């Protein structure tokens, strides 16, 4: 057993604290503690993940260019390919945010 308290352990400790204070709080604070725990779960998956490091999975300039092309209609002829391309990067984000949201075909991380 290592004595090093890594980032995941720090986050787990904060989650445990949130659960403790939620148990003695009013309904609104309990809800907010749940949301905070949800956010920390996301960060923990991101720290563990290989596909994403927390920054967006796509280059910002490429994203802006792709959006402009979709808007102008110049991607219409490549509609299915574009949907698949965007879906691929979206699946990576969903795996971080809430993997159980994915359908079975994208479920394996």
């Amino acid at each position, binding site marked *: 057993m290592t004595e090093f308290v890594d980032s995941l352990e720090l986050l787990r400790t904060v989650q445990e604290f949130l659960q403790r204070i939620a148990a003695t709080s*009013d*309904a*609104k*604070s309990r809800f*907010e503690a749940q*949301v*905070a725990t*949800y*956010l920390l779960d*996301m960060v923990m998956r991101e720290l563990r993940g290989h596909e994403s490091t927390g920054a967006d999975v796509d280059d910002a300039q490429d*994203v*802006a260019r*792709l*959006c*402009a092309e*979709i*808007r102008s*209609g110049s*991607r*219409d002829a490549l509609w299915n390919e*574009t*949907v698949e391309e*965007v*879906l691929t990067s*979206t*699946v990576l*984000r*969903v795996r*971080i*945010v*809430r993997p159980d*949201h*994915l*359908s079975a075909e994208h479920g394996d991380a």
Partner: protein
Amino acid sequence: MTADQATIENLSNALRRRFGQGARVENVRAPSVGASSSTLIFELVDGASRRMLVSRTETYTDRNSPFLSASDQFALVFEVFRSGFPVPEPVFQYDPDDEMGDGYVSVFVEGVTLPKTIVHSPAFAGARSLFAVQCAELLATLHRLSPSNFPYLGERSDSIDPIAAQRDRYMGYGVPRPAIDLGLRWLEKNHPPVSRKSLLHGDFRVGNLMVSERGIIAVLDWECSHLGSPSEDIGWLCNRAWRFGNPGMPVGGIDKAGPLLAAYERFTGTHVDDDEIRYWTIFGLVRWAILNVMQAKGHLEGNRRGLVYAACGRNTSLIEYDILMSLKGVYL
């Protein structure tokens, strides 16, 4: 959670101005901060009488806000209540002297809005058995009201062109999201003809419906009302975002679409086309994704920081996934 002392003092003064110096406020609580407003529930005590009331004040203001102003909301709820529709009775609107911000007070209706309870609690099984037909009846009733009674809605961008309204807001946020652009492009190219424009609730779904164990008792949260295709309200109700753990049950996670559409047709005499519902369901996903971008932007810019708003920033990708799966025809 309780409200701060200054707010309670202002609220007390607002009530004294309208109900006399003997009026006072007790048992103030702040149940939630919604997407566009802040809510307080309190008791108005006047002599021996006690009334539970609700205060709603705007928290989101923007030139291109997707939300109705408080004064238009008050006028709308007043008119809808007058028609006999189940909506909490509006009591009075705040004015600048109240120092409460823009908002209004209505009567408190006792019931449950919590989706988890409504969709999953055994105690609500009876309410669930009626839910789809009740939704159809309420929407049919609402869609029959004359749009001319709501003149301020006609100028709203959502009433004029709902797709353009979404695109304008999305472009205004300056956050490029390819899935949203794909959704908007598809909506622009596949727009079904709108034969008539009706009054729409604009956010008719589990979470905005006050429900008892015997069924829906009131329809809340009218800040997204506008005029448009009745199918827009039906598509929004069937949005995947409001299925609460039951993705195979489009009507609020409670029922299939069939009973809803059959009942709506029975109440209105109007056939609702499946393709039209699919169109407006995808519209609902795009609109919901853009609303989440708005909340994340407010959080990042510091206007309205909060845990839920931060979560909206990341949750946008869940909605984008649903948009793309719908565009592929995997999700119907």
